[in-house]
Structure formats: structure tokens, C-alpha cells
């Protein structure tokens, strides 16, 4: 058993990405590969999973208590970072990234490390598109907004269909589970679900693979340790897209 430290880091920069999303840059780089995450200790509040959006940053959407506590922090404040955790993406060949909302966070690291050839980025509205300039620099970027305020008026799935999924060796996906489910459906249709690498979100208590709160049906795979990234063929016949468990372990349908 080797120590998995929660390393104290100083927040060196806070970037307002959208009204509800901020990037917290910290004083230390972690050897995170694209898709790796960390457990973020917000002292006095909670410890929650967050993807590395850079080796020294997380990008957080405010949704509840712990993320609100994070938003209340300022430059110079400290948090604890336990990671990198999880398996990460394993792209090979021609690679497409498909991101919805804050799901762009882990895929940003994929793009900035030069692995993503093409990038499909979606959000509800133009304001909420994450990292558009940065992604456009290192990938061939296409955007979609639900309300049409930027790029394609509609869903990332429309752009994916148009891009011909079979032309990619790897398709890395992160976003709301309904969106990911729709992406998987397209890949199945195209006959290549195993090319899809989906970064899942499940309720995580330990983040290190011991407690079992993040396990998915019917394989019992742990999202925190065996995942968070699973290929489409692994999750096609699973709870994916239909339900997840809450903090108590009760099933909640999407």
C-alpha cells in the first residue's frame, strides 16, 4: 500500500470561463495524462472529483456545495489535490474529441497535448462554450450551441454524424450522460462503438478504487479506478445513459 497524498497547492489564477464555470490554476504541475482526474479537497467542505484540464488546473462548474465553496476561494488560497487518478484516454491514430459543457475540461488536455486532430465542442449557448480559442489553435474545431448563438445551431451529435465517425480511430467523449449516450448510439450505428472512449461521471467517495460507490452495472467496474474512461463496447450493455447511483447508493434515473 503506497501513500496517495492530497498535495496542498496554492491557487495562482482563477479564470472566469463562463458565468458558472471557472478554471483554477494552481502552483504545482501533476503528471496528469488526458482523462486523468483528481480528488479536490476543499478544506472544511468536501472532497470531489475533477478532471485535470491542464497539468496544473481544474475547470469547475458551480453546481452545489463543494463547487460553491471552490468559487468562494481567491488567488492565494489553498486546496488539496490527490492525483492523477483513473485510467485516462488511450488515443491512437486519427483522433476526434467530442465535448459537451464542462465535459470539455478533460478533453482540453487531450487537445493541448496535440493528440486531438478534430474537436467538436458543444454548449447550451455561446457564453458557455469552453476554451474555444485555445482549442481552435491546436485542433480543427467545430462548435455547436443548443440556441444557435455560435456555430452549428443544434447538438454536437449532428456535427459528429456529418464528420463521419468511421474516419476516426479514436473518438474521445465527455459531457452530460444523455449526450454521451447519443454519441454512443451513433458509433454503434456506424459499427465502431469500441473506437469511442467515454469519460464517465459517477458519485465518488474515495476516488481510489476501494469504497465501491462508483461501480457500474452489470460489470461492477469502478469508474474511479477502472475508468473514468471506458470504450463504447464495454458500456453499451450497461447502466450508462439510464441510471446512476447517488451518495447513499440508491439508483437515480437520468
Amino acid at each position, binding site marked *: *500500500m503506497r*501513500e496517495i497524498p492530497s498535495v496542498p497547492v496554492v491557487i495562482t489564477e482563477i479564470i472566469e470561463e463562463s458565468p458558472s464555470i471557472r478554471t483554477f490554476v494552481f502552483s504545482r504541475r501533476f503528471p496528469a495524462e488526458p482523462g486523468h482526474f483528481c480528488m479536490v479537497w476543499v478544506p472544511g467542505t468536501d472532497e470531489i472529483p475533477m478532471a485535470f484540464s491542464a497539468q496544473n488546473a481544474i475547470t469547475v462548474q458551480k453546481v452545489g456545495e463543494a463547487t460553491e465553496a471552490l468559487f468562494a476561494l481567491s488567488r492565494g488560497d489553498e486546496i488539496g489535490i490527490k492525483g492523477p487518478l483513473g485510467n485516462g484516454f488511450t488515443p491512437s491514430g486519427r483522433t476526434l474529441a467530442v465535448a459537451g459543457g464542462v465535459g470539455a475540461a478533460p478533453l482540453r488536455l487531450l487537445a493541448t497535448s496535440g493528440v486531438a486532430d478534430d474537436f467538436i465542442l458543444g454548449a447550451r449557448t455561446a457564453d458557455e462554450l469552453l476554451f474555444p480559442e485555445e482549442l481552435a489553435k491546436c485542433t480543427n474545431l467545430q462548435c455547436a450551441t443548443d440556441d444557435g448563438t455560435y456555430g452549428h445551431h443544434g447538438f454536437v451529435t449532428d456535427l459528429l454524424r456529418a464528420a463521419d465517425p468511421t474516419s476516426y480511430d479514436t473518438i474521445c467523449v465527455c459531457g452530460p450522460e444523455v449526450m454521451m449516450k447519443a454519441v454512443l448510439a451513433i458509433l454503434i450505428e456506424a459499427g465502431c462503438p469500441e473506437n469511442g472512449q467515454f469519460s464517465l461521471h459517477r458519485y465518488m467517495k474515495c476516488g481510489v478504487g*476501494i469504497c465501491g460507490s462508483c461501480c457500474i452495472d452489470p*460489470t*461492477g467496474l469502478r469508474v474511479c479506478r477502472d475508468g473514468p474512461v471506458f470504450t463504447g463496447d464495454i458500456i453499451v450493455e450497461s447502466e450508462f445513459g439510464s441510471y446512476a447511483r447517488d451518495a447513499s447508493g*440508491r439508483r437515480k434515473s437520468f
Partner: protein
Amino acid sequence: MVTLIPGEITVGGVRLHNHCMLAAGVLGTTGASLARMLRAGAGGVVTKSIGPEPKEGHKGPCVAVYDGAMMNAMGLPNPSHDFIGELDGLTESPVIASIFGGTPEEFGEVADWFAGRVQALELNLSCPHAEGYGAAVGADPDMVEQCTRAAKHSGLPVWVKLTPNVTDITEIGLAAERGGADAIVAVNTVKAMRISTNFRRPVLGNGMGGLSGPAIFPVAVRCVWELYEACEIPIIGCGGVSSADNVVEMMMAGASAVEIGSAVIEDTEIFRQITESLYRRDGGECPEDIVGCAHA
């Protein structure tokens, strides 16, 4: 190394595939996860502890991992009665339901949910970090006796899991025995705390936590030894087991089988790895001859 003859065994009224079970609270929240650990070679599996009401558990951090030890304060998160559904398809498997409550009545109520669905109950009278539950009840011999008796009404074999955080663990073991327990599980985690000197606050969200893993193995062996000297019913050793030799050591102290929790963090294949070196068809010894042999 001492090796054992392989084969199914029966301990505390439950038929097990081998001597190494999955401990409560470790990858035991869902039926799929329990089934996975059985496929991975566990001789039996104990569920996450289930209580009378759903609980979300403590705020994080819930787990801290150190060299040779981990510390947790999950706070007994559980879906309560909803958990029953997780066991569909596992009724024939060596699954033991861990249950908890604050009173004998609550133990009795939760116990009844599991009749016909699991092979035995394990009473969590020993979680060191949940107010009003676990060790709060399990340090009191009378309560232990009553809770055991209440759970026995379910008709299932009842195992009682003890806390090492008491002055005399044999007193509690004997109380379980009086209450009609079919086996004793020793032990749950050791009450502990670490503080982040950087943040000047406890490392776990709950403050107090329970220590597990290799660091507590000598404490668990001691508890098993003491219980073996005092009690008649079988003892299941738990705490820090992480190798086949550790299994043998627990058995020599008096354990009829063991449970393994924290070591699963190394690899979910740990049961396969341990049992592969634990058993030898040729040259293995008869397990019954090993149990308690160090007391000779």
C-alpha cells in the same frame, strides 16, 4: 510457506469457495460489484453495511491512503431497504449481508429484510466513526448480546463483527456468543486520526476515522488470538491481511477464515493471487489442523 489443501469450507453456517472473503464496505455497494469480486476469486463476499434508513455518509475526504495503511470515515452510506434489489441473482452465492442499527429492534428489522436472500448476516457493531451506530453499540456487552439475539430471529446465521477499540475484546465476543452468534468477525478498523499540518485540520471530513490495512494486522492477530482463547464459536479474522502467509498467520491465531478489505486497493485480483499461493493440492495441509495451532 505453509499451504492448505483447497476445497469448499463451511464457516459460521456458510459454505465458502475458499478461506478468503471480501470484507464489508469494500467494493460492496452494488450487486454487480459483489459478483465481480466473487468472479475474481473471493471465497465469499460481505456487503456494504445496510441500515434502517438511507444514509449519504460523511463529507469528504472519506479515505486517506498511506504507506502500509489507509484510514476511512465513510459514515455508513447505504441505500437501506433499496439494497435488497442488488442481491437478485446472488441468492445462491456466498453473500453475507452486513447490517447495522442503533438498537436491537433496528437490527431485528433490517435482519428480516435479508431472510432468504443471503447466506448469513454480519452485524456491524464496530464502525468507529458513526455516532450512535457501530462501536457506539458494540462496546457494550449487553447491547451486543441483544442485537445478536434480535438478528437471529431472521433465521439466518449471524456473524458479529467486533471493534478492537475496547479494553477487553473477549468480553464482547462472549456477549455475542451468549446472544447466539454463529461466528465472530475480528476486527473492524482501529479508531484513528491524521491531521493535515498544512491545512491545520483533520485529514478526513469527519475528523475521526478507522485505520485499516497492513498497519493493523498485528492488532487483528492479537484480537483473534484472545478470542480463540475465550470463545467457542468460529472466528473470522479481518484486518490488514494482504498475503497468503498473512492468511495462514490469522488461521494459526485461531481464525477459521479471513476477510480482506484494504488490500483490494492493490489489485481487484488480490483474491486470485492470494488463493493461488495459499492452496496446494499436493503438500497442502488440512486447514482444520492449522486453525489455532499456534496456541499449542
